[in-house]
């Protein structure tokens, strides 16, 4: 087994003309052919389009044009990112075969930077789940242990990067859907500040929380991808119109003089091995010159409850459009109400139905103030709690998930226990802050452990500097682990 090349290595080799994009692609397609059957990272491998995209990159290099920052880098896209003419299903039967007539903004930006899209990755249906088991196309398996989940909802993207199918993948993170599977699959996963990456063309789950972000096998690759996909987009009203932090250039700046807060609430209830790894990462930051202290943000204890009111409420509205009229599945019936009902009942899986009903209930007359209204106020408390911590600290640190990867089927029958696996990731979504999960060693069974770093809004530069230090200190075989070709 040889470590697969990073995106930084691929792009630099392709741009300098020492390696052909086509060769890079064929290597990754071979990796997919070898292992995809056992993992099911993809809903669709876009082999032929990838080949023509790679040829176009090579032609640009031959013609002396700059093919872009991600020249020839194979990229896997979560199947909730719209790709023009290429099926985009959100792993739902209700969208089976739907071909969007447009590209998501992040997809356009990746292509412009010379990336080669290799396929659409499996996910929890409409990103609702933490194990990729709610997918209508069947579960994705963790490349480190095929009997275990890869996490979710972006489990296919995490697994694709971990398995060496692509150096970079995009996911979406509404309550931890990038960071949690990144931790469970032993790769880097980053959720940007809300508004720094366009949501145009990301099929909405919970609009006020959703954010697109990168998976990579190195912090530098994640930084490279963030620099490519970030920035203002006029098609997204919530896109921030201010300079996006360019993080690639500050990666080596270190943490000298930074204050790192170890977040007590994230350690509570986590497995001892996960807590031990988080503490070890904090020590590594201290060794690199950071001041490390314990901090408490008690408000985050309310985050899970608030999240499971806000996200389903928004989702219940976002998912109303799957009604059998304009696109996607239709189950015929005598009248339109019956047709809508038959279509949605057949097209949505149990978890989607559960959350749509939860959200409909939370918004319905009589419960709006008690549930949704209160949850929005709790969101304010959480933001204030973090603000207090960030008066003292530059970054916060804790586990990404309370446990390492759990066995398939272990939690599907118990929604609440599944939801609890996002307890450490949800607070930053509610606050809109950036966070990153960096692999940091393994548990006794050899399963990856992720350490999470959190930073204030728009402090991606600080976040990535700390992440680079943690990555460099990671035990052998975790920091750049996983990928084989």
């Amino acid at each position, binding site marked *: 087994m040889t470590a697969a090349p990073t995106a930084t290595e691929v792009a630099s080799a392709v741009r300098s003309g020492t390696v052909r994009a086509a060769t890079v692609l064929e290597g990754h397609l071979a990796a997919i052919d070898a292992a995809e059957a056992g993992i099911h990272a993809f809903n669709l491998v876009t082999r032929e389009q990838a080949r023509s995209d790679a040829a176009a990159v090579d032609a640009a290099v031959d013609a002396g044009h700059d093919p872009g920052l991600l020249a020839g880098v194979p990229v896997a896209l979560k199947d909730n990112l719209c790709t023009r003419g290429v099926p985009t299903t959100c792993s739902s039967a209700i969208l089976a075969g739907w071909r969007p007539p447009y590209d998501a903004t992040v997809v356009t930006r990746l292509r412009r930077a010379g990336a080669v899209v290799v396929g659409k990755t499996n996910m929890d249906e409409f990103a609702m789940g933490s194990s990729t088991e709610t997918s209508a196309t069947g579960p994705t398996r963790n490349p480190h242990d095929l009997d275990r989940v890869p996490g979710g909802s972006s489990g296919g993207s995490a697994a694709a990067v971990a398995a060496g199918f692509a150096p970079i993948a995009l996911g979406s993170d509404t309550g931890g859907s990038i960071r949690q599977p990144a931790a469970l699959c032993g790769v880097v996963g980053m959720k940007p500040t809300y508004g720094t990456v366009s949501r145009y063309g990301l099929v909405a789950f919970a609009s006020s929380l959703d954010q697109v972000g990168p998976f990579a096998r190195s912090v530098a690759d994640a930084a490279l991808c963030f620099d490519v996909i970030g920035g203002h987009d006029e098609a997204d009203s919530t896109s921030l119109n201010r300079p996006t932090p360019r993080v690639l250039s500050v990666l080596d700046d270190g943490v000298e003089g930074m204050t790192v807060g170890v977040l007590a609430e994230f350690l509570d209830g986590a497995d001892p091995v996960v807590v031990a790894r988080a503490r070890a990462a904090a020590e590594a930051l201290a060794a690199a010159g950071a001041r490390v202290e314990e901090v408490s943000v008690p408000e985050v204890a309310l985050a899970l409850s608030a999240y499971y009111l806000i996200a389903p409420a928004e989702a219940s509205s976002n998912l109303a459009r799957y009604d059998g009229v304009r696109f996607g599945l239709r189950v015929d019936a005598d009248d339109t109400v019956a047709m809508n009902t038959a279509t949605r009942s057949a097209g949505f899986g149990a978890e989607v139905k559960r959350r749509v009903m939860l959200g409909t209930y939370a918004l319905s007359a009589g419960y709006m103030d008690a549930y949704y209204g209160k949850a929005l106020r709790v969101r304010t408390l959480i*933001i204030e709690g973090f603000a207090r911590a960030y008066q003292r600290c530059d970054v916060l640190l804790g586990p990404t998930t309370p446990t390492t990867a759990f066995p398939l089927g272990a939690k599907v029958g118990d929604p609440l226990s599944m939801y609890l696996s996002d307890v450490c990731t949800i607070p930053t979504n509610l606050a809109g802050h950036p966070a990153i999960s960096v692999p940091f060693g393994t548990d006794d069974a050899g399963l990856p452990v992720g350490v999470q770093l959190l930073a204030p809004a728009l402090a991606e530069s600080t976040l990535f500097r700390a992440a680079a230090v943690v990555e460099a200190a990671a035990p052998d075989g975790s920091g750049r682990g996983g990928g084989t070709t």
Partner: protein
Amino acid sequence: MTDGPARITRDEVAHVARLARLHLTDAELELFTGQLAVILDHAADVATLDLEGVAPTAHAMAVTNVLRSDTPRPGLDRDEVLAAAPDVEDHRFRVPKLLGEAP
């Protein structure tokens, strides 16, 4: 602390399913009522909080006046749009009988 809402009932779940245009079998109704009750019980820590004086946050990032100029842009090709539709007639989206006007 204030009293939280009463525990969700099977009838309420059935009502919510109708609002959401979902048909549930009796078994699903039973299962979902129990599961939603557990989730909502967990949410009681939020529902019972006294948050008088705390402003709601709808957007984490406070931004205002995001506007677009009133300039036409080409839309989608009609054939492509209609090709994706389950049923089409006369360049329009065809739907079964409507039982009433829009609410």
